[in-house]
């Protein structure tokens, strides 16, 4: 009996320690935005909305959030469209060299990371005059995300039954009509998954925009956040608190949405 009690106590102590380890670093983000005159210290918030004015006072804060939206949406659209087209073709048609292509894509997506490719990508962007171009950054990030997206998408395509496509064909639908009106609705959950995954990836990406966008008016929230806490002089803590919170909220909402709608099933390794 005592053994059982000790066991229980040990268990709850362990849980408490783990909870503290994961909670303590996050406390600041929950309290500081609502505390008057916030410092690095975690204090009980007095629920002021004063700090949010700091965002309006900063010329780049809101703009950078909008830039993040543009980059994330642009990349997600391109990734979803191109990955869906490619995955459908690769799933249904036995193109020559298909298996080798898929294997290579898989290999490439894991070895050519931002870290390994930052030097040539920077060079390439300079040569193609894509420095300070949001479109250029979108294309570069799309290229980086596509292999993994095609792979995940092909998985969805492979598991959709082809009988719907066959019957549509019997009724005289053209291949493109079939793709648009039969296949797309069938794989919609897959498309949504890829879109959310791409948005999450771009939203948090710091390295690529940091390398390729030097114009502060074009930089996304990740880069502005970094500039805010590393730039010389006194960091504006009001701004950091509220801006950090606003920048984080969409990710949390997206996660809640996905886990509610699809359940956060674990699929091998979809990581941001």
């Amino acid at each position, binding site marked *: 009996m005592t053994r059982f009690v000790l066991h229980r106590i040990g268990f709850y102590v362990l849980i408490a320690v783990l909870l503290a380890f994961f909670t303590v670093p996050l406390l600041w983000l929950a309290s500081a935005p609502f505390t008057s005159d916030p410092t690095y210290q975690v204090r009980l918030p007095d629920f002021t909305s004063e700090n949010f004015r700091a965002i309006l006072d900063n010329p780049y804060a809101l703009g950078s959030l909008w830039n993040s939206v543009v980059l994330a949406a642009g990349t997600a659209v391109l990734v979803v469209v191109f990955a869906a087209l490619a995955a459908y073709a690769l799933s249904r048609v036995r193109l020559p060299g298909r298996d080798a292509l898929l294997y290579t894509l898989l290999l490439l997506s894991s070895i050519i990371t931002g870290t390994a490719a930052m030097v040539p990508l920077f060079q390439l962007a300079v040569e193609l005059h894509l420095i300070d171009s949001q479109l250029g950054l979108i294309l570069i990030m799309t290229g980086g995300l596509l292999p993994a997206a095609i792979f995940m998408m092909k998985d969805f395509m492979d598991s959709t039954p082809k009988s719907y496509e066959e019957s549509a064909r019997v009724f005289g639908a053209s291949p493109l009509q079939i793709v648009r009106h039969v296949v797309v609705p069938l794989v919609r959950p897959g498309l949504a998954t890829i879109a959310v995954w791409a948005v999450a990836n771009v939203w948090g990406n*710091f390295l690529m925009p940091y390398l390729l966008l030097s114009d502060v008016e074009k930089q996304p929230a990740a880069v502005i956040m970094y500039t805010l806490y590393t730039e010389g002089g006194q960091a504006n803590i009001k701004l950091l608190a509220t801006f950090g919170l606003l920048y984080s909220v969409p990710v949390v909402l997206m996660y809640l949405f996905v886990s509610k709608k699809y359940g956060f099933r674990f699929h091998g390794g979809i990581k941001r």
Partner: protein
Amino acid sequence: MAQATLPPEVLDDAKARRYSADAAGLGRLRAGAFVAPALALISLFLVFPALWVLYLGLSNYRLTGAAAAAPQSVGFDNFVKALTDPEFWNSTWLTFEFVLGSAVIGQVVLGFLLAWIMRDRTGPLKRIVEGLVILAWILPSAVVSFLWVALLDRDDGTLNTLLHSQDFAPLLDHPMLSIIVFNTWRGAAFSMMLYGAALGNVPPSHLESARLAGASGWQQLRDVVFPHIRGHVLTNLLLISLWTFNDFTPFLLTAGGPDGKTEVLAVHVYQVALQGGELGYGAAVSTVILLINLVVAVFYLRLLRSKK
């Protein structure tokens, strides 16, 4: 671009073949046109840079100056320079410490511990613990980095408050330990979820009979659980090592400092190539990173194949 990979069943050829018939009558030509835009972008912005980095590594390309206008081939000089440069070896060693400490030990142990103690639980406690662990994983890296800068601040960081200590500045006094603990915190969610899924596959009856036979908790883990999840452990190790090896987030916490004590290879490349302007030399270091990635990835794909 630190994304990854796929469930083993993707490679399941039999399943693919069953559904691979061209039901919509797409034909090879249209299929090719469907694949083309994706391949074009991948070739230009992923494959070409990877090949170009090999070429750049053999040149004396610089960001500015004469060598920027007319770069010349310098053979393997950059590689020789890297291999004889103590800073390169320092970075390599720091990267090894970082990967070993935060991924192989930190995330694996903590992730497994979380999955293990939560395995039979349901209800709010499990949801809260898992939610917080996942929150640490999904928040943008610029935000969590700043949160840790605030946490570890010398003057009024929360850590100093909790320890009732003053002027304790982990980021300056123990920078490597700081980013290891940070990255363990940051990435434990992936391992937790993977082991959570893996533990679900251990038949409860096996555990039950082991318990009836009087096996201790440790013996159950070693003799019943581990054989079932061995494949997952290896998958997990390879993936998180690859990600941690390529992680640029330490830059957001310490920018490689103080005195280069946290200048892991990812940060080292940035410092020499883009801050220092030595693109050729930076490309040579990138080539080394690519080769290490290749070795780990090939191991991983072998593993997936052999599982089939």
